[in-house]
């Protein structure tokens, strides 16, 4: 029996699944309400919103402008390549787009939801064939490559589709988180339940947003994710994202070998627990590695009140990444909380026993998985 990576990092008392399910069914928030939690969650989501904005712009740029580029050396430059920016990039004075790629690969690899189903459909294969044929007419390298490795280019198009879909998803989430910060400053959001309600409202508003993606080859336009595929924001992208990035994740590249040798990688993808909600805030080179590049990106965009609060506690700037990670996990529990509430099959105040049972099953399924995460951050 492989070791669950979460077992390696959690040893403190965590809330049991039943308690979490009861909280969800009572309509309460997983994260306890406190002024400190409000400061942390809103502040870290604001910085996350800034980062997601950059991630979103870049992912959409990559999918549209670097499509099937065999040598995408400058894919992180959003088309704005100049010596000063190149120097900043090489000097690591930049957004770490590698984390966005990590999330995209996690989504592509775990492949849940309608997006993945469409990427394996005959309609998508037909679209790919048309795009590849058009590309081969103009690109001799791809023309030679495709017969040698016929599944290579379709896989690249699947990747590009996921990149674009994630870019669209983060566009919505970035705006939502920045709106939340503005609402909090206006005094419209002043508690953790209000934060969860705000996010839930934003998700529900975007539930049916269509997800589609087209590319231009020469002057010809091709649909990769056509409108007729019927892909929508919540079910086909948001939930697969939560599943892949918040819950499952993948071991980071440097630790794959380490974890495999220690028999810590489950053969069942569904039982992976490398996601953000399971990450150990303390970097230890073990299984529960925090998304340190994201922490670094958020650190550069911390709002001053939260930064000031971080500086006052612990080691000040010395352990700021750990503090950001803990705040981030609190924020992600709020987002997950809003997602669970938004996808609850029936109203929580329903008196119908069948509807209550369905709600309970929904809440328990989530609670079972969350209870193995870093829920020790939920208390005030």
């Amino acid at each position, binding site marked *: 029996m492989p070791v669950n990576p979460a077992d*390696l*990092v*959690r*040893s*403190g*008392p965590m809330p049991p699944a039943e308690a979490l399910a009861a909280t969800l069914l009572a309509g309460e928030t997983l994260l306890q309400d406190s002024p400190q939690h409000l400061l942390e969650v809103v502040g870290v989501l604001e910085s996350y919103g800034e980062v997601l904005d950059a991630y979103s712009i870049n992912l959409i740029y990559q999918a549209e402008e670097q499509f099937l580029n065999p040598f995408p050396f400058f894919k992180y430059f959003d088309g704005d390549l100049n010596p000063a920016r190149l120097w900043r990039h090489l000097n690591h004075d930049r957004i770490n787009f590698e984390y966005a790629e990590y999330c995209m690969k996690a989504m592509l690899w775990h492949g849940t939801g309608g997006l993945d189903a469409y990427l394996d459909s005959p309609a998508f294969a037909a679209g790919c064939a048309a795009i590849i044929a058009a590309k081969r007419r103009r690109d001799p390298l791809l023309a030679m490559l495709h017969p040698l490795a016929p599944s290579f280019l379709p896989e690249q198009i699947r990747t590009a589709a996921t990149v674009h879909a994630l870019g669209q998803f983060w566009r919505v989430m970035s705006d939502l988180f920045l709106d939340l910060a503005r609402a909090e400053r206006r005094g419209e959001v002043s508690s953790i339940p209000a934060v969860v309600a705000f996010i839930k409202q934003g998700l529900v508003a975007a539930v049916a947003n269509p997800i589609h993606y087209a590319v231009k080859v020469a002057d010809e336009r091709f649909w990769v994710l056509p409108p007729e595929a019927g892909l929508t924001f919540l079910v086909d992208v948001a939930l697969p994202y939560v599943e892949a990035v918040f819950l499952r994740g993948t071991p980071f590249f440097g630790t794959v070998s380490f974890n495999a040798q220690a028999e810590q990688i489950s053969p069942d993808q569904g039982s992976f627990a490398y996601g953000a909600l399971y990450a*150990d*805030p*303390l*970097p*230890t080179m*073990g299984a529960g590695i925090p998304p340190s590049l994201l922490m670094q990106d958020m650190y550069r965009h911390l709002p001053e009140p939260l930064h000031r609060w971080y500086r006052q506690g*612990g*080691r000040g700037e*010395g*352990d700021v*990444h*750990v503090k950001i990670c*803990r705040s981030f996990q609190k924020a992600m529990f709020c987002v997950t909380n809003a997602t669970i509430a938004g996808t609850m099959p029936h109203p929580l105040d329903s008196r119908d026993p069948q509807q209550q049972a369905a709600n309970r099953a929904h809440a328990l399924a989530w609670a079972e998985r969350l209870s193995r995460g870093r829920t*020790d951050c939920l208390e005030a």
Partner: protein
Amino acid sequence: MTSAAMTSLPLLSLLIAVPLLGALLMLVWPGSPTPNRLRGGAIATLALQLLVSVLVLLLFDPDQAGLQLQERQAWLPGIGLNYWLGVDGLSLPLVLINGALTLVSVVCTRELSRRPRLYFCLLLVISAAVNGAFLADNLLLFFLFYELELIPLWLLISIWGGSNRAYAATKFLIFTAVSGMLILGAFLGLALFTGTVDFSLTPVTSERLAMGSQLLLLGALLVGFGIKMPLVPFHTWLPDAHTQASTPVSVLLAGVLLKLGTYGLLRFGLGLFPEAWAQLAPALAIWAAVSVLFGSLAAIAQRDMKRMVAYSSVGHMGTILLAGAAASPVALLGAEFQMVSHGLISALLFLLVGIVYRKTGTRDLDVLHGLLNPQRGLPLTGSLMVLAVMASAGLPGMAGFISEFLVFQGSIQAFPLATLLSIVGSGLTAVYFLLLVNRAFFGRLAITPHNDPPRDGRLDVQLPSVAPRETLPALALAVAVVALGLLPAPLGRISEATTTAMAQLPLLLAAGNSAGGLG
């Protein structure tokens, strides 16, 4: 200052007088000086002492084997006690390291709430006494200085030590007092058996003294200095003393005071009784191997970091006895290197253990985990600890490698079995120190026994950060450890003539005896 002017100065006396005057200054400092001010005074004193040491180094002629810069004043000639000082390649590096490590001890003293005047005064008295012992060219004078450091150290442990300090200090006092009595007994016995009151450092031949008497006197010296080094089975005071002593005192104890034993063993055991030494050498080599193996195996069994480092000293001191037993030029040079490198490395280890203890409140290897954590652990301390254990395990490029390589190379021909056993024991150093590093520094940061939940139910351990000034002494020692490993030639140049002459002493005496005595 010209060389002639410098030679006219009583530099060796200054090496004793400067710290003694500094100690006096601590006691008579007007008003109520703060501990920081007193520490500043002690640092200034030790800096001056180090400056004098450097002047001695500049005037020292490394091509000469005998004592140099000698200062001779009759004191109580009737009983053979004369104020004769001199320095050679055996004692000069130890004088330098004494000044440096006392300075480190003073610098790393933190949060001194009780009797700061007395504390710094005692540290300076110890430094003066150790210098006196290393420089003494008279057996009784050596003994006086050897005993002079005893009471200050006892006070340092019993006043500023841990919760079980009274036991540890008393044990230290009893063992070291017995050591002193045996050494004094050997010196007085020498006078008694030879019928003179000449306590100068003249080798004793079998023409002057029967071999049985020589063996008796040498045996007393071996046990006396064996307690101080310490060697198995006279080592039991050391782990207790280290465990209860504060970090600066442990630094001094391991780095400098144990070297009084090794220095005494080579200077007086080998130097006074070379013929008897040659007869006992095979037994000494076995004793050394047992000490090395026992020290290493006992270290593996420890759970307290400080006790582990203390037992490692027992093992490393054993290699010096092995070098002394072989008494070849290379081995004795290795012994000198081992004294210096062990002084630096063990001081570094104790400094780092001290930082860990100050920040975590424990030294228990079953409780400490993941201290290398870059955000909330002790990353620099941990990195230096990894460097220190590599040096202690004798990895190339570090001071420990040079010394152990020379010792084993110099002794393998004379005592192959004992050397091989010692090499195995030395190899075990890597085992116990890797256990230490693996348990305390690798993995997830936690201050909790294995498999037990944290007391507050949370995993976000909050350790205070280590200020740069706290790590500075350790950094300096680490640089010295690497520098000595990469550039051993200067130390070799200082000591080689002396150690070569010491190695040739038994041969010269044997040749002299066969030719009708030394004349």
